[in-house]
């Protein structure tokens, strides 16, 4: 079995990180509410402006981030069973997926800006750059979290499973916030 019996309930990683996830979650709920409210007030404008976005790119971004979440979950699982090499490999795999998302996002922005779809173009574009931008910032911080996890896994000293799980929890947060942003910006019509 995986080191901890099924019956024992445990908090994955530092409970402190969960405080962050919940707090930041509520902050994002507030951002999303502001977006949905503005959108419902001028549905025509939002719908028209939304045509600048390619739903397929959004789906691709989401699939990449879901894959990164999967690999970081595998990393935690492997580390828990003492498979540090596999865990490190999965952490690097997560980083590559994260990097893929980063490049795809940057490309999407550049193309959009070239088409005149800038931050100040209209209300939808402002929200689009704001939400994707603040999420992008969380992604960049996520690379720091992954680096901390890799450092833990590779250090000769006893590995702290708690720190690895804490970093993974942060990374999943990037993922689930994106799932909501994807639905709000790309899917909602």
């Amino acid at each position, binding site marked *: 079995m995986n080191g901890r019996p099924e019956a024992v309930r445990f908090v994955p990683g*530092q*409970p*402190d*990180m969960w*405080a*962050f996830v919940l*707090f*930041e979650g509520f*902050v994002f709920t*507030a*951002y999303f509410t*502001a977006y949905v*409210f*503005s959108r419902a007030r001028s549905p025509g404008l939002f719908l028209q402006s939304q045509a600048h976005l390619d739903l397929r790119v959004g789906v691709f971004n989401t699939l990449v981030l879901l894959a990164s979440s999967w690999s970081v979950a595998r990393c935690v699982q492997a580390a828990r069973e003492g498979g540090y090499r596999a865990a490190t490999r999965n952490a690097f795999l997560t980083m590559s997926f994260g990097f893929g998302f980063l490049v795809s996002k940057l490309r999407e922005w550049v193309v959009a800006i070239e088409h005149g779809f800038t*931050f*100040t173009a209209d*209300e939808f574009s*402002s*929200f689009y750059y*704001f939400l994707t931008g*603040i999420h992008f*910032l969380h992604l960049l*911080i996520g690379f720091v979290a992954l680096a901390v996890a890799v450092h833990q896994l590779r250090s000769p000293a006893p590995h702290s499973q708690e720190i690895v799980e804490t970093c993974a929890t942060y990374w999943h947060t990037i993922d689930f916030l994106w799932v909501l942003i994807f639905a709000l910006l790309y899917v909602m019509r």
Partner: protein
Amino acid sequence: MNDGKRELWIGWWTLVVFYNVYGLLFFVVTRTQPPPEPSLTPAQVVQWFAERRHGLIYGYAFVFIVGGATAIMNATLAYSIRRMSVSRAFAYSYLVIYALATLPGMLIMGVACTVGAMRPDRDPALMSWIYDFAFLSFEGTMGVFLIGSLVWMVAVLLDENGVFPKWFGYLNLCNALTEVVVAPAWIFKNGAFAWNGTIAWWINMGVFVTYTIVFLTLLRRMILREDFGTGALP
């Protein structure tokens, strides 16, 4: 009363009293918070100054008198960082960054509002400039709080003395991110991202108020826990 903690208690009570007085002066006396719309026309700005002329002048006079209290507040928080197992550089950075923050963070706004309120008959175009200067210096000053929160975050996360819980370290990150979120206030004159907007003001203010209440509570717990005994002076 534990004699060894008197300086800490002076600092803590200064923090509590100051934040309440500050809230009162900004929200009730000067009525500059919640902020008015950035999209006012020059004529409306002149009227805005006229409506709260005495509140601005007397309210900011009190802000100027008590403004220096931030020094003892920042010193108390710098001391809490000094108690952590991290380098002293963190405490000193915090002290200097927040000492600097007082100026653009509130005093410049006070000077601008006083100058605006003093001469109601000034050219409306210039009144409009004063109005922008006041609110953008106040809300658009981001770097000091951004870097200050990050310095505090790193200190808390690396600390092994348990001065503050780790979740407060992460909360510092939330506060730092609000300073990024406020940046569009320099670009938009209306909507959610303007200086009075849902996102740039209301949500950020919610985070800031939570953050402030949390660190005041945690600081109080730290002081209650501190055990100086009768040993040598630290």
